[in-house]
């Protein structure tokens, strides 16, 4: 209160009242005159693995640069060589966010203090990922097959420029096109534009970015530094990436009984959950991951009735792997658990695997079946694969597409199946929309969004109507899901007469696409979620980056969404009350060994405001997906993923004006002059005080 008043007095002694006179309790109104904080920024952060560090780093007290809005690649001359006030903070639009421009700025790091990317229109193609994703942790190593290693035969992502895996020692931030960006551009146009012939006038508009990362070099170094603190609560410098896989058996097993199950044969249906972008928090993943797992979710729903009426001979495991972008975290973990008897089945129980890859961007009417040529040299495996192909191809009868096998000599695309193959020669197929290299022009970038899948809704629909509207993309994915479900049913030994009754529901598919790519906060997702988790539903799509493995049993939004959706689509509603749902073991027919019981919100009936919540009995489980390298303590592992994310203290950005060096030096000069003058004058007056002040000591009577 005291300081507030003093601050206000100060403000009035030196500044006249302005319209934006702020009265909130911030003792620092001077700072408010100087800085404009930017709140909606997404930084590029540092990731480390066994050998490298990638990503961006700022200095510990932030990096400051004069703002320069880049207009074209030729305009780079200004910040790199011609501009008179380095260092510069380069602001560029997303169309100029290319590898050549970023590399030029990386090399001139003394003149470029940082880069800010403003997201605007999508370029025609852009993939910051590598050309050969996960090349060292898949199955194609030098020993497996020399010719197929390192994408020698097929380069899967030819448009990849590897920008996500470069290391930058200046901060790179991303901004959306909104009010804050307007403020920045206005500041730039007011102060930083070169007026022909007269040069730049101070004060100039500048920006400061803080994104100092604690971890350096590689994972082994940062893990060693984290554990060196011997206190009870060690300070971590970096965190391993990871999350949870979502798994559901059609016929669940006792979840406490690990290891081999006698006479059990399981068909695994797999899909990938996660995705990434250059700016990790901005990960969309429409074609890269959503197309695959939405198809698998729809297939799981389609299979529900048929498998309950007439359970097939083999079991089916729906596995949604998380962390696959970062060297197959989820699938390598599951294989490790299977090999070490930490999972309910082991590798001997696995009969075959069908994986759904990227399936939404077709370049024709065909989808393609990829298989591994090396394992197929074994006749048994070859026969099984041929059988699986036959089941798949016959499942497209009556649908508007057909499935074509790819060339025999072509290896598998990057997929979770490769990790299973690394452990055992299991027959399997990866379903994808590309025959050779991928069709995804925006693989692992933030342009792989709803627009990329042509997910368009008529403009006059409300959000709830958009949720129900069946788009063309949804229709084509529904057909794929139907084919997948039928093939799985046949593969699991189901009764052939039931096959044609298996159909995926286009309404479910379109609702899922809407929820995962447009808005996650819609009525269906609200109905399906648990009450305590309803806050993870936002008015924008969820985020697909796997994130760090949390020590508490908390997963990220995407994992919970998939878990609860799978529970809703494959589980059964029960009559249990909420307290019974928490402790179902007390009831005679329920068992938490086999099932998990989830209390979900339910729908709001038309004439009331209360939700009809209920308890779902489901076989869906979350299985921890952290790379085995961290359990084994092998941080330089070449076998498993060693990705970690650095920790940081704070990340922020702000803009302000900078004054000319001349004015600063003038201030300092005046100050020094005043100080010396006052010292001299005071000394002089003091020595001559008895002359100047005729009676320094007053006579005694004046003191009373």
């Amino acid at each position, binding site marked *: *209160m*005291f300081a*507030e*008043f*003093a*601050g*206000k*007095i*100060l403000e*009035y*002694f*030196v*500044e*006249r*009242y*302005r319209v934006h*006179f702020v*009265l909130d309790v911030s*003792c*620092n109104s*001077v*700072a408010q*005159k*100087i*800085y404009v904080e930017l709140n909606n920024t997404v930084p590029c952060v540092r990731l480390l693995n066994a050998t490298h560090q990638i990503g961006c780093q700022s200095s510990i007290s*932030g990096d*400051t640069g004069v703002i320069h809005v880049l207009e074209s690649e030729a305009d780079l001359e200004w910040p790199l060589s011609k501009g008179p006030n380095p260092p510069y903070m380069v602001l560029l639009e997303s169309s100029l966010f290319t590898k050549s421009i970023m590399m030029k700025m990386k090399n001139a790091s003394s003149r470029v203090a940082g880069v800010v990317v403003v997201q605007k229109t999508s370029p025609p193609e852009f993939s910051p990922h590598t050309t050969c994703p996960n090349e060292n942790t898949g199955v194609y190593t030098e020993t497996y097959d020399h010719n197929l290693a390192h994408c020698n035969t097929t380069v899967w992502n030819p448009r990849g420029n590897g920008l996500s895996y470069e290391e930058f020692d200046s901060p790179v931030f991303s901004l959306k096109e909104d009010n804050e960006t307007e403020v920045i551009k206005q500041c730039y146009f007011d102060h930083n534009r070169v007026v022909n012939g007269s040069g730049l006038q101070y*004060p100039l508009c*500048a920006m*400061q970015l803080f994104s100092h990362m604690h971890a350096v070099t590689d994972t082994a170094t940062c893990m060693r530094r984290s554990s060196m603190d011997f206190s009870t609560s060690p300070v971590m410098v970096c965190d391993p990436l990871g999350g949870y896989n979502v798994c559901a058996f059609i016929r669940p097993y006792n979840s406490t009984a690990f290891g081999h199950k006698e006479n059990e044969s399981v068909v695994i249906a797999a899909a990938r959950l996660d995705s990434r972008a250059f700016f990790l928090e901005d990960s969309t993943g429409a074609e890269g991951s959503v197309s695959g797992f939405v198809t698998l979710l729809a297939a799981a729903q389609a299979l529900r009735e048929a498998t309950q009426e007439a359970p097939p001979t083999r079991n089916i495991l729906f596995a949604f792997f998380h962390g696959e972008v970062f060297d197959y975290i989820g699938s390598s973990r599951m294989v490790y658990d299977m090999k070490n008897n930490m999972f309910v089945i082991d590798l001997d129980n696995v009969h075959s695997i069908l994986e759904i890859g990227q399936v939404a961007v077709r370049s024709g009417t065909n989808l393609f079946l990829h298989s591994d040529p090396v394992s197929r040299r074994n006749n048994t495996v070859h026969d099984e694969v041929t059988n699986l192909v036959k089941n798949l191809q016959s499942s497209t009868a009556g649908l508007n597409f057909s499935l074509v096998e790819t060339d025999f000599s072509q290896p598998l695309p990057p997929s979770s199946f490769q990790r299973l193959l690394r452990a055992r020669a299991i027959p399997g197929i990866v379903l994808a929309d590309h025959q050779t290299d991928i069709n995804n022009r925006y693989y692992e970038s933030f342009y792989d969004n709803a627009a990329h899948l042509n997910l368009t809704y008529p403009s006059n629909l409300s959000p709830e109507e958009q949720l129900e509207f069946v788009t063309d993309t949804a229709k084509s994915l529904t057909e794929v899901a139907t084919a997948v479900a039928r093939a799985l049913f046949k593969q699991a030994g189901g009764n052939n007469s039931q096959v044609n009754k298996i159909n995926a529901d286009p309404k479910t598919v379109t609702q899922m696409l809407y929820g995962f790519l447009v808005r996650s906060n819609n009525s269906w997702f609200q109905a399906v979620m648990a009450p305590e988790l309803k806050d993870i539903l936002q008015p924008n799509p969820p985020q697909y980056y796997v994130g760090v493995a949390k020590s508490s049993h908390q997963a990220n939004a995407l994992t919970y969404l998939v878990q609860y959706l799978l529970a809703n689509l494959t589980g059964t509603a029960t009559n249990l009350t909420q307290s019974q749902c928490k402790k179902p073991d007390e009831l005679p027919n329920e068992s938490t060994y086999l099932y998990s019981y989830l209390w979900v919100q339910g729908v709001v009936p038309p004439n009331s405001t209360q939700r009809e919540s209920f308890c779902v009995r489901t076989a869906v489980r979350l299985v921890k997906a952290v790379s085995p390298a961290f359990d084994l303590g092998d941080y330089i592992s070449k076998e498993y993923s060693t990705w970690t994310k650095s920790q940081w203290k704070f990340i922020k950005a*702000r*803009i*302000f*004006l*900078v*004054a000319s060096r001349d*004015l*600063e030096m003038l*201030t*300092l000069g005046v*100050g*020094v002059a*005043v*100080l010396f003058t*006052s*010292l001299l*004058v*005071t*000394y002089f007056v003091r020595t001559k005080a008895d*002359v*100047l*002040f*005729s009676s*320094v*000591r*007053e006579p*005694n009577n*004046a*003191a*009373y």
Partner: protein
Amino acid sequence: MTAAVFFGCAFIAFGPAFSLFIFTIAKDPLRVIILIAGAFFWLVSLLLSSLVWFIATKATNAQDLTLQKNLLIFGSIFSVILQEVFRFAYYRLLRKANEGLAAISEEDGPPLSVREMAYVAGLGFGIMSGAFSMINTLSDSLGPGTVGMFGDSQYYFITSALMTLALTMLHTFWGVVFFEGCERKRWWVIAVVLCVHLMVFSLSLLNPFYVASILPVYAIMLLMAVWAFFSSGGSLHNITLLWTCRKSNAETSS
């Protein structure tokens, strides 16, 4: 803005006060005590006036900006009046203390004259007032940015420092003049000091028209300096004495 501006403004604002402290106050512990007590008295006056302002703002509508602005002006005027009241209170306290100090002093008579106490008390008020005006601004001047984003003048830091310097010196001179006036029972002096203080405050409201605010304040400071010089025993004769003394010294030594 940067370290250069930080040190420049710090030297401008606190340079004279610092040199006065080093050369005239630091060696005598009694003067140090009176300086700090004077600073404390100023602080208490600011506390009480801020209490009044705080109650006034909380009791009224925070969204009405004109009203808040007027409340601030009212609060500041009240603060000026309260500072002068506390100056008077400090004078009375020092007079009483002087009797006690004279009784226990080893020397004959009081250890400090009223004039010296006036100067030290005024300086105490000035230093504390300057500190409160300037420290906040100084800490922000260390960052990389300067004022101006919202249309304020970029000379903000220098002018704040200059105003603080003027205010510190003004408080010192007011202290001298005020105590002298109380000593000689010239009560009109108190009224004049109060009026000049209010005038300086209202001039500061003219910021950022720095020409209209800083130049008049410095003019007032010079006038007050002259008045304080005369009221503390100086005269034109002394100055001419000084000058001829130096001249004669220079002659004799050459």
